[in-house]
């Protein structure tokens, strides 16, 4: 192409006519106008025009977006509704059930689910349905009856009318959440202090509320003493034992040091007995009160407040009270330890474990992945070998995650962890310290699992840095190192964040490998606490993903666990979204900062 400008031509290189040409050629309206043709055309030609104008393609692509959107929103909505509804205090129904086998029984419980069934189903489970009703549909309800300790069956299906009578919502219904045996449903009759009745009937309600609060306070103090005080003493005692054993192994038992150890042990024992005495005293106090209640089958039972976590009368609560109850329950769910084989209580350890594991994973994977990508893209000679490495990295991303779990178990735990134990913790053997699944190994395994994602994303970012920017840097006399580290890497930072976002999303949702390398159903201690070194990398931990699996599939009480599965899943989704949003916000700031012409 030769530019045909005479040496002394007009000042502007583009003559006006040429500019006009270009505009006409790219004017979208003129083009559409030509395609569409006259308005009065037949339906067919209009369809044809729609098709040729890209209509179907637009619908197809927009449709795909809508489907994805509906699926995502639907998913979140389903788990949100099912999970969050659980914490709302359900009204307790009293009704009479006419059973052919059991006669008339009084039913007192909260309806958890309802479904419509055909008579066939009812007949199969033992109801006699007269033939003239064979065409009707029936409703049946799943009642939560509670009182597992008394009846052994805390959920039961009852058919609706005509098998049950009128539904009523008695005011004096009492629901107790207990430390064991699940909920209690009954009627409040009175309150006892050391075996003597102190309040009865209606008067008992305010007294009950105060005394439950007192018991909760006492229980919290007992827990404090057990978890913080006694737990810490136990750990220090164990450390003493290990110190002693280490000296024994080394064979230099200095009598002076031994005496010192003995003194320290005595001091610990002293501390322990003080704590124990405190605990016993509190225990005594908490046992003072008991609530007297009548169950649905008319029995009077005493329930010590020691075992009551929360008492409520759902049928007498106003909406604000219910709201407060809801918030309290929800807060308990996210801030408390699980109870009763994880089907009650909170999921704090699982939230904590998930977050800390993801953070540790990020700390491990980010530097390694970024450095590897920088080497591959900026320093390595681009050739067959580097290409081969790249293919390997990409393939690593496709390896099933359980395989990483197996690798983590075999390599990290048995090989590395076992080695660390033999070298640094011989005194604890045969009990392993690092040679057993734990937080560190789980994080490392997931770091390995997500490494390809970070590498690929970072490399992608590095290749997108325009050549012109690199050349600009060289042109002012920077070395390769300065160009890479001062210009290229900062500009690729948003891409690195993208890698991290993808890695976090993948790691937070991963369950299978974790079961092999550190996640447990119930961890007695959080991996972070007030005892040095504060972060206990060797500890096993709980994880939301595994918690969902455990509660949903391994639970002895399926009906009680079901809402918790949804609530836990919702929590997991929220945590992942929160982590991602944080990372996206950081990335956005980096993008703003390193915005270049090419973006």
């Amino acid at each position, binding site marked *: *192409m*030769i*530019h*045909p*400008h*005479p*040496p*002394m*031509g007009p*000042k*502007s*290189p583009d003559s006006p006519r040429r500019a006009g040409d270009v505009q006409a050629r790219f004017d979208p309206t003129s083009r559409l106008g030509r395609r569409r043709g006259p308005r009065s055309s037949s339906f067919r030609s209009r369809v044809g025009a729609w098709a040729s104008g890209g209509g179907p393609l637009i619908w197809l692509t927009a449709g795909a977006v809508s489907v994805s959107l509906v699926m995502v929103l639907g998913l979140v909505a389903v788990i949100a509704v099912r999970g969050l509804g659980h914490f709302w205090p359900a009204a307790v129904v009293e009704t009479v059930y006419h059973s052919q086998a059991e006669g008339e029984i009084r039913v007192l419980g909260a309806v958890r689910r309802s479904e419509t069934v055909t008579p066939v189903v009812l007949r199969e489970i033992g109801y006699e349905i007269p033939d003239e009703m064979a065409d009707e549909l029936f409703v049946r309800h799943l009642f939560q009856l509670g009182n597992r300790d008394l009846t052994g069956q805390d959920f039961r299906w009852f058919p609706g009318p005509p098998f049950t009578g009128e539904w009523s919502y008695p005011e004096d219904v009492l629901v107790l959440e207990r430390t064991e045996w699940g909920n209690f449903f009954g009627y409040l009759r009175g309150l006892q202090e050391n075996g003597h009745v102190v309040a009865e009937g209606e008067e008992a309600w305010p007294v009950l509320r105060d005394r439950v609060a007192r018991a909760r306070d006492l229980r919290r103090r007992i827990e404090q003493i057990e978890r913080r005080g006694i737990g810490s003493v136990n750990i220090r005692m164990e450390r003493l034992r290990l110190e002693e054993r280490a000296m024994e192994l080394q064979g230099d038992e200095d009598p002076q040091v031994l005496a010192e150890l003995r003194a320290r042990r005595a001091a610990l024992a002293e501390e322990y007995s003080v704590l124990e005495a405190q605990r016993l005293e509190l225990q005594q106090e908490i046992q003072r009160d008991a609530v007297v209640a009548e169950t649905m089958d008319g029995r009077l039972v005493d329930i010590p407040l020691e075992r009551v976590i929360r008492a409520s009368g759902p049928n007498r609560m106003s909406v604000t009270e219910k709201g407060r109850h809801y918030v309290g329950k929800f807060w308990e769910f996210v801030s408390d330890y699980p109870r009763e084989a994880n089907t009650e209580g909170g999921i704090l350890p699982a939230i904590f474990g998930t977050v800390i594991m993801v953070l540790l994973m990020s700390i491990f994977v980010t530097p390694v992945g970024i450095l590897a990508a920088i080497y591959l893209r900026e320093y390595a000679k681009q050739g067959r070998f580097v290409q081969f490495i790249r293919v390997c990295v990409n393939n690593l991303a496709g390896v099933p995650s359980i395989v990483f779990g197996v690798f983590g178990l075999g390599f990290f735990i048995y090989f590395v962890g076992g080695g660390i134990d033999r070298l640094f913790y011989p005194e604890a053997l045969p009990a392993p310290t690092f040679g057993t699944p734990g937080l560190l190994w789980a994080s490392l395994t997931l770091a390995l699992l997500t490494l390809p994602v970070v590498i690929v994303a970072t490399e992608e970012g590095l290749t997108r840095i*325009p050549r*012109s*920017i*690199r*050349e*600009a*840097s*060289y*042109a*002012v*006399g*920077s*070395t390769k190192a*300065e160009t890479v580290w*001062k*210009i290229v890497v*900062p*500009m690729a930072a948003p891409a690195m964040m993208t890698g991290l976002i993808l890695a976090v999303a993948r790691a937070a949702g991963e369950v299978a490998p974790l079961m092999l390398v550190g996640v447990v159903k119930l961890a007695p201690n959080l991996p972070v606490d007030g005892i040095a070194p504060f972060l206990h990398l060797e500890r096993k931990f709980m994880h939301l993903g595994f918690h969902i699996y455990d509660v949903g599939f391994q639970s002895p009480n399926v009906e009680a666990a079901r809402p918790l599965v949804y609530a836990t899943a919702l929590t997991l989704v929220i945590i992942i979204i929160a982590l991602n949003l944080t990372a996206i916000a950081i990335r956005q700031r980096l993008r703003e*900062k*390193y*915005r*270049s*012409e090419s973006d």
Partner: protein
Amino acid sequence: MSEREAGLNAAPRTTTQEPAGTRNLLAGLGTPVERTPVPGLQAEAAAFELDDVGVQYGDVTALKGVNLTIPRNRITAFIGPSGCGKSTLLRSLNRMNDLVDSARLLGEIRLEGEDIYAPGVDVVELRRRVGMVFQKPNPFPKTVYENVAYGLRIQGVRRASVLDEAVERSLTQAALWDEVKDRLDKPAVELSGGQQQRLVIARAIAIEPEVILLDEPCSALDPLSTAKVESLMYELKADFTLVIVTHNMQQASRVSDYTAFLYLGELVEMGPTDQIFLKPGEQATEDYITGRFG
């Protein structure tokens, strides 16, 4: 000085092979065995001297047999049709082609008498002496201030007062100071294209090089910005040696003191700009600048 001038006069060389495509055009030239010394150039001090320079990208020969002298404190323009090797020639002057794996240089290029491709030459140092401005403005994704200060910072300048002074001086010299003095801490990409181009010129002169190479610096600019950059080049001539690649004949004729015409990887002729434009020595040059072939 006298030594260098002697070198200039000794420049003419024989071009041995020509690609088939060049025959046609060069037919009118006869065989350019001995080149007559460029008139007026003997009086100038040379910044760059090129001896039989060729560049190959793998198997592709982009440039060959180029002998020329680039005078100090003058503006030298490279003109020629697209793909004739202007950028290649320019980029070989500060060894920017080293970044292209496949590029190979033949012949010798001397800056102030020193072979810049000799083993042991510090490329980084060379690029500090020979700055470059590219066709498309390419500011760093940093603030206006940091763009200009970058070259000095990597040289280890830390003192804020020194940096401030250098930034102001460079921006003033690049005729940009008044426009950006209130937005020094704003991202450079927020400037207009013309301002960005003057910014990268300021960035280039901030490290006080001896030579500035400009590869089509105005091709993305409007006439007003172009005029600004052109008058800027005129100003800079006092302190720097400038080499500019341009497709714009008027620009070449307006700003440059010397013009070199390249065609198909070869130097056809070089001379004072007036002479090249009014009375070119070769038919090919005349055809090109009058737009008679393409």
